[in-house]
């Protein structure tokens, strides 16, 4: 396995800058997710790392070797695509064995490695079957088995779950960490689904418009997003952005939300002091599940009206309105509320962010 390093990679397609000066290091053995909306450049970066595409400028290193000019096979890459790639004329065993025909020295070794991959992907019972005898979900498992059975420098997965239905996606998703642990290689996994990235990755790199926004562990990007886009893109339901202004009263920091001043933690004071002079036109970011609803007045809460309730089964996504501010709150379906009701929103102050909407930077 290799450590992968992209250095100042730029890719221009005609007039479109798909990647703009992207540098990232992926340590060996890491499970790394490239995450972003469609058109963000994640697939282009993956294709450049794998050798399917050459960068307009910049280089790719595997360990300390410059591989920019090498083909995917010279780089020793194993890949899984959105659609299963299986030879219909061969049975599943032979399909997997074919992937390692240049790597194995004996039939015995071949058998052992195919068996190992098949058991890891839970497809042992299908080994004797042909392409047309098994369904799409199993086929995608076979594709993954074909990749991980190899001893590759880097294993690349291009949205491997995106064409599966929800149930299949869910079950395979929960197995991916285990697969990675057993294979022990460097995994680069491309997806637009932030939940998928959060669920399986050691580290996530978030792209937008060809630029890398943040690289970090799921915890880092979830709790400490560097900018407004990361805060918005990570987390479901989406984080609320509420227009706010800050002020210090008797040395304590307050944020104006709706029609109320809400006292903030002490830690906001420092950040606030460093921005003296610009305390207006800011935004407060808080995730819907960091807001709770009380039907009776409580201290330090924001009086609101229930504007809109969306059922998510066991939970409710409730839109609350307070003066000019509207925000969503995730609460239990057992909560007895109705649209039009007056309630009190309590913000979990540990998880409040202050954002400058002009620069999109998360101040704290």
């Amino acid at each position, binding site marked *: 396995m290799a450590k992968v390093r992209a250095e100042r990679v730029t890719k221009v397609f005609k007039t479109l800058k798909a990647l703009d000066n992207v540098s990232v290091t992926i340590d060996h053995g890491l499970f790394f997710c490239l995450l972003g909306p*469609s058109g963000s450049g994640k697939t282009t970066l993956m294709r450049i790392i794998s050798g399917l595409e050459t960068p307009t400028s910049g280089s790719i290193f595997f360990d300390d070797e410059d591989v920019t000019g090498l083909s995917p096979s010279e780089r020793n890459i194993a890949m899984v695509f959105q659609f299963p790639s299986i030879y219909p004329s061969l049975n599943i065993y032979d399909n997997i064995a074919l992937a390692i025909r240049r790597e194995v020295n004996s039939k015995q070794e071949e058998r052992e490695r195919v068996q190992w991959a098949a058991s890891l992907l839970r497809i042992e019972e299908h080994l004797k079957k042909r392409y047309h005898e098994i369904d799409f979900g199993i086929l995608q498992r076979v594709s993954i088995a074909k990749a991980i059975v190899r001893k590759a420098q880097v294993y690349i997965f291009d949205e491997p779950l995106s064409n599966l239905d929800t149930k299949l996606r*869910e079950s395979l998703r929960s197995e991916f960490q*285990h697969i990675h*642990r057993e294979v022990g290689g460097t995994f680069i996994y491309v997806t637009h689904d932030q*939940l998928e990235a959060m669920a399986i990755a050691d580290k996530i790199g978030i792209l937008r418009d060809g630029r890398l926004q943040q690289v970090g562990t799921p*915890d880092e990007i979830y709790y400490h997003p560097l900018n407004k886009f990361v805060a918005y*893109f990570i987390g479901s339901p989406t984080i609320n952005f509420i227009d706010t202004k800050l002020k210090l009263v008797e040395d304590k920091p307050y944020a104006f939300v709706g029609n109320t001043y809400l006292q903030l933690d002490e830690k906001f004071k420092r950040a606030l002091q460093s921005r003296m002079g610009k305390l207006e036109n800011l935004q407060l970011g808080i995730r819907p599940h960091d807001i709770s609803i009380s039907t009776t007045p409580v201290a330090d809460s924001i009086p609101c009206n229930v504007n809109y309730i*969306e*059922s*998510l089964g066991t939970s409710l996504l409730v839109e609350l309105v307070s003066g000019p501010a509207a925000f969503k709150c995730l609460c239990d379906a057992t909560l007895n509320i109705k649209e039009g009701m007056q309630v009190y929103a309590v913000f979990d102050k540990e998880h409040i962010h202050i954002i400058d909407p002009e620069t999109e930077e998360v101040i704290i």
Partner: protein
Amino acid sequence: MTKVEIRGLRKSYGAVEALKGLDLVVESGALVALLGPTGAGKTTTLKCIAGVEKPDSGDILFNGESILGIPAWRRNVAMFFQTYALYPHLSVYHNIAYPLREQKMSKDEIDRVVKSVAKKLRISHLLDRKEPSTLSGGEMQRVALARTLVRNPLVFLLDEPISNLDAKLREEMRTEFKRLHRELKQTIIYATPDYLEAFAVAEKVAVIKDGVILQYDTPINLLKRPKNRFVATFIGSPTINLLRGVVRRGARGWEFSTSGLRLELVSVGGAFSKIYDGLEVELAVRPHDIILGEQQNGNTFKAKVLAAERLGHETIITLSLGEVELKTVSKGMRLYKYGDEVSISIPGDRVILFDVSNGEAIH
């Protein structure tokens, strides 16, 4: 406002029976989701309502009157698909105005309708855009929807309208649909394979499989009181846990036992009337109902962590209990490693039993 009734609808394509006697009543002005996997018959149902397909037997009524004799182009039903097919050579404005021009509406009237619909869909700022292909997915979708809306149809049929969008955009659009329905108050049938989407947009959901409706209910009832195994497994994320075993009469009441696991059952609302000693069942319990940690009232087990998926607002934990694998969910970002030992308890009143022979729920 139109009430839609579907009675015993059947439709075959050669040897394939797509609809096998489908019944559904959609109250006037309601938004009902038709939820089912690929090939369940969702699109066929919508096509029959639209008049694009002719059913073999059965009837479809609008406000009590059969519409089967009315040709598609006179039914005034709007059908909206996954792909929006905007006219690439027309501006956004003229894309939306197109159906009205076909109706020979006056210019002023067209202008008024287009602008009011555009406002509802929050695309007023896009009306002057020349090339619809330069719009984002969500914007294209709204333009296509606006083009459907201006016709003021009796019934809206939406066939997986947001399946083609990014996960994030889908989340936003489903809220948008519900909001829109509130404003329009029109009858909408919304087909989707995604239960969360169905729950988010509709007050009532019809679960369809193999050409029949299995259960027509509110989201909460579908979750808590599924009529059969299919509904239980199709709805809910992560998927409901299923264990196969036998019901036994224990010292303190009914028990469920499977390989190395014994659970005391607590009946909700009276005794189990249909179970007997030795009955083979599948026991289902939702991941959200399994509690991490020991509980006083028993059913506590030791388990080993196989995987933890930390999604942000919650963590999905896959556990192994000997031969049995279970998933549970815990709020927030929780730290569990492969191999960690934990205790879990399964509340005896939160489980659902299914008869192994037919998959029906036992109450």
